[in-house]
Structures are given as C-alpha cells and as structure tokens.
C-alpha cells in the first residue's frame, strides 16, 4: 500500500508582529516555523496503516520553497521513506485551490492508494486543500477522520462532526482523508531516521497545469489589539483571582 501524506509548514506568531513589505505575509523574524500539527497526525496514521498492511510506502509531499523543504525534513524524521517538493511558476500559496492543483501533479506521478492531509493548517485554517484535491483527483474525500484501517481496497474510519458526533464510514480506495488534530500521538523518529531526514534527497516536481486562481490575498494587518477587548489583569494572587471569578459567576448567573 502506498500512502501519500501532504504536509505544510505553519507559523506560530509572537504577540508583536511585523509584515513583509508587500503586506501579504508575516515577517519571519516574528514567527516560529513548525510542521502543521494535524499533518504530523496524518504522517503517524499513514505509518501505522502501512505497517498494519504488511508493507508499502509512505511518501511525503509539500508545496512551496524553503518552508516546504523544512517541513518535509521534519516530517521525514518520523520515518517515511521519501519526500517530494512541488514548486513552480504560477503556484499561489495563499490560494488553497492552487496548492491543491500543485499537489495533484505529485499524485499523478506517484499514483498512491490513499492520500492524507491534516484537517487544517493550524495558523490559517481554511480546511480546503484536502476537499479541493480530492475533487481534482476525482476520488471520495472523508474530512476530519481518525482511526483508519484497511482491508483489501476498502478504507474504514471514523469521521467527526461538531459537538462530539462520530460517523463510522467506509470508502473504496483510492481516496483522500483529512486527518483530525490529535487523532493519534505522532512518534518521535529514531536517531537514524533523524540523520536520514537531514541528508535525504528531496526531489522537486513542477506542476504542468494549475487551476486558475479566483481569489487574491490583497493585504494583511495586525488585528486590533484584543479584538476590541482591553485586558484587565487581576493582581493579588490565587485567592484574589478566585474571589473575582466567583463575583463574575454570581453576576452572570443572576
């Protein structure tokens, strides 16, 4: 069984931020780059599936430049066999459809049985790349999934809805699943895997065709401080904090 896992780099921004000169991205000096948490859960899910299936391959793919390269090396340290980076003229990272179109190029050359993505990127959270990619590839998409298992060419899993509702479903492979954050605890790779990830040869694929971009990110700005709320800090230690909270509770309950 061959599982392709799409990973992306996300940014954790500091309280004070500055934007790049074009106003469309965070200045990297004010952010910490990490592999998207849900994507690591997708990698873990893929590794377990392939192990249970008695063999196969987990291949990673990411769209972008240095950020994608870093995300792939971090995720490779969990143990996947290899990684592919997709980049080329016309790819718009701020447009999830463009990213999905770029990923499709890799699907076409790898022909996986299953594609996994994280449910959403933790920083910009559009929940769109997976469903768009499945539509382009022409396979069924199961969003917000966990507990994946396969028998022959059928995939069984749970999908989550709001407020704790869970639906157990099955779908024929090939298919695409967006994996829920916290679906599992991603492993720490071995020292050997970490060294291998560092030195891995990551091939670069250029998409031949991309869907037209119908949206444009025109500008970003720092959100108004506290989203219109102004923070009052309670001083005086835990007992003063508890007393104040109790007052607020009584007021709200009255």
């Amino acid at each position, binding site marked *: 069984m061959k599982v392709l896992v799409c990973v992306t780099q996300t*940014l954790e*921004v*500091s*309280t004070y*931020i500055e934007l790049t000169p074009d106003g469309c991205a965070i200045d990297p000096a004010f952010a910490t780059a990490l592999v998207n948490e849900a994507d690591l859960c997708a990698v873990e899910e893929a590794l377990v599936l392939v192990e249970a299936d008695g063999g196969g391959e987990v291949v990673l793919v990411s769209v972008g430049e240095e950020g994608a390269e870093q995300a792939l090396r971090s995720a490779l340290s969990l143990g996947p066999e290899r990684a592919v980076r997709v980049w080329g003229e016309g790819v718009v990272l701020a447009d*999830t*459809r463009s990213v*999905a179109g770029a990923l499709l190029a890799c699907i076409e050359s790898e022909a996986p049985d299953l594609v996994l993505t994280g449910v*959403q990127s*933790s*920083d*910009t*959270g559009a*929940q*769109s790349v997976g*469903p*768009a990619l*499945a*539509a382009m590839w022409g396979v069924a998409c199961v*969003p917000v999934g966990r507990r994946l298992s396969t028998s022959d060419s059928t995939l069984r899993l*749970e999908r*989550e809805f*709001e*407020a704790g*509702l869970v*639906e*157990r*479903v*099955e*779908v024929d492979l090939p*298919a695409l699943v967006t994996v*829920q*954050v*916290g*679906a599992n605890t991603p492993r720490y790779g071995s020292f050997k895997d970490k060294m291998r990830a560092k030195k891995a040869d990551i091939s670069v694929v250029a998409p031949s065709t991309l*869907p037209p971009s*119908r*949206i444009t990110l*025109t500008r970003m*700005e*720092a959100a108004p401080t*506290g*989203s219109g*709320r*102004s*923070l*009052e*800090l*309670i001083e005086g*230690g*835990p007992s003063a904090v*508890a*007393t104040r*909270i*109790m007052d*607020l*509770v009584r*007021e*709200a*309950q009255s």
Partner: protein
Amino acid sequence: MTRSLVLAEVVDGVLAPVTAQAVTAAVSLGGEVVLALVAQDPQSLVPDASLIGVTEIVTVAVPGSDRDHEQSLAAAAALVADVQPDQVIAGFTIRSSAFAAALGHKLDLGVITDAIAVYRDDSQNLVATRSIYAGRVRAHVVIDGARPGIVLVRPSIWEPADPGGSPVVRVLTVEIPTSRVRTIELVRPSGGVDLSSADVIFSIGRGAGSQENVANFAAMAAKLGVALGASRPIIDAGWLPAAHQVGQTGSTVKPRLYVAFGISGALHHLAGMQNSRTIVVVNSDRNAPLFDNADIGAIEDIHDVIEQLTLLA
C-alpha cells in the same frame, strides 16, 4: 442587483443557528437573498427558514443524511446553476467545509472559508476578511467581481436574522448520485451536555496536566452550577467526553461568562468562544494568545486558582 444564495446548515433534520447568521451576512450585501434548504424533508424547515431579509426559499428534497457531503455538493451545484447567484454563503462548519472547496473547483469559483467580515469593495469585488494566526492577523481576500464567489462565514460572528419573513417558496428537483462514502454506524456523544445555551462556562485546557486534575475541576464546576468545557487536547487524551469540547470541531459557544483555565488559545479554540460576552483567562504563560482576546486575565498557576475556587464553591 446582487443576489446571494445562502445554503442552510441542517443538522439532524433541524435548521442550525449558523443559517440565520449566514442570512444576515447575505442581507448586508444587499439585493436578493435566496435561502436553499437541502434536506430529507425540507418543507418542514420552511417556517424556521422564513427569516426577515430572505426573498425566496428553494427546497431540495434529498434521500441521504445531512452528513452526506457528496449529496450536498450535487445539490449545491444544481442550486448555483438554477439561482445564478453573485455569491454563495454558508456557515464555516464541518458539513459545509466538506464540499465547499469541491464546489469551487467544479464550478471554477473562488472560495473563502472562515470569514469574519464580507463586503463589496468600490470596484464591486467580493471581499472577505479572515482572522488568522491565532486571531493576531486579519487577512483581506478578494474574489474577482466578474465571477460569483463562495464564502463560508465563521459561526457566531453575525447576529441571527429574525424570524417573521414571508419569502416565496419553490421546489427544485435535483438528481442526487449515490455517495461513495458509506455510513456504517453513527455514534452520538454521551452525556447530554449543552454548552450552546449555558450562561457560564468554565473550560480547561492542556495546562490541566492530568486526568485527576480534570476530574477535580469538573467537580468544582458542577458545584458552582457552571457548564464544563474543554479544549481539544483534553478530549484527545480521553479525559472528558467529546461533547465538552469548545472550538471549531466542538461547540461554538457564546455564554455571558467564559473562564478559560490553562488554554493557550489556538485558532481552533478561539473561533469557538471569541464572542462570549466576558472572557476571563487564567494561565501562567503571559504569552498565551488567548490573553489577546480576554477582558480579564490572571497570570497564575491554574492549579492554585482552582484550589481557591474549590474552597469558595
């Protein structure tokens, strides 16, 4: 004149609250507002869907459940072809997100999800504002005015449209393909927790540290008569049932008082509680993003504060 197509969110055969909020977002753009009801028995939803500002209701009867997103996609595509809207608006929910990007691809339309504002700019382009990077950044995304766009609006941002409208109602027949995603079993959450109507919610996050601490916190909350919420890691650890989860894949809440203990405030959680009337945050880490969105904060070890609250309860 502009025309919006609002896709109603139907959960267990009932109109979900985000529908009336999406109608308000559509009404703010002016023009006609067509509300589509895609359900097994859409006629039964018409009274609740007759909201002020809705000019027309289009019903689509479908065989499958409201969780069948391939069915939703087929219905939505037929609705767009029939209604010819300038924009399609729906709630940013798991059900809508499951098909919106596919709809955008199928019809070659721009899609913007999780919008907190939507408007037309001076050139009549559709613009949506997104709140990203844990609420610290606003991004403005434009859909070219020459083509319709799809916008999914974040729940609890817009006020709900009021009932009492008298829209025209008509039926649209759509051929629905059999979904490739087959249901085996539906598992409903246990516990009967209803966070959405609570006046006061105490929520606990990763800072809890152990299942025992969560149990003590739950006992304290019960004694105070406040609802018990939690962030994602507590649910993932199996320390509380999923029904307690506040956030994008849990419940979106709007209580009079929301007190967060040991929750850092990831985008996922923030989007589920940011419209609470008063937000109190207790966290030992002053850099927790949730402090940006709080009215009252305390930089304290949550265990010390919970201990004191237990004494007062």
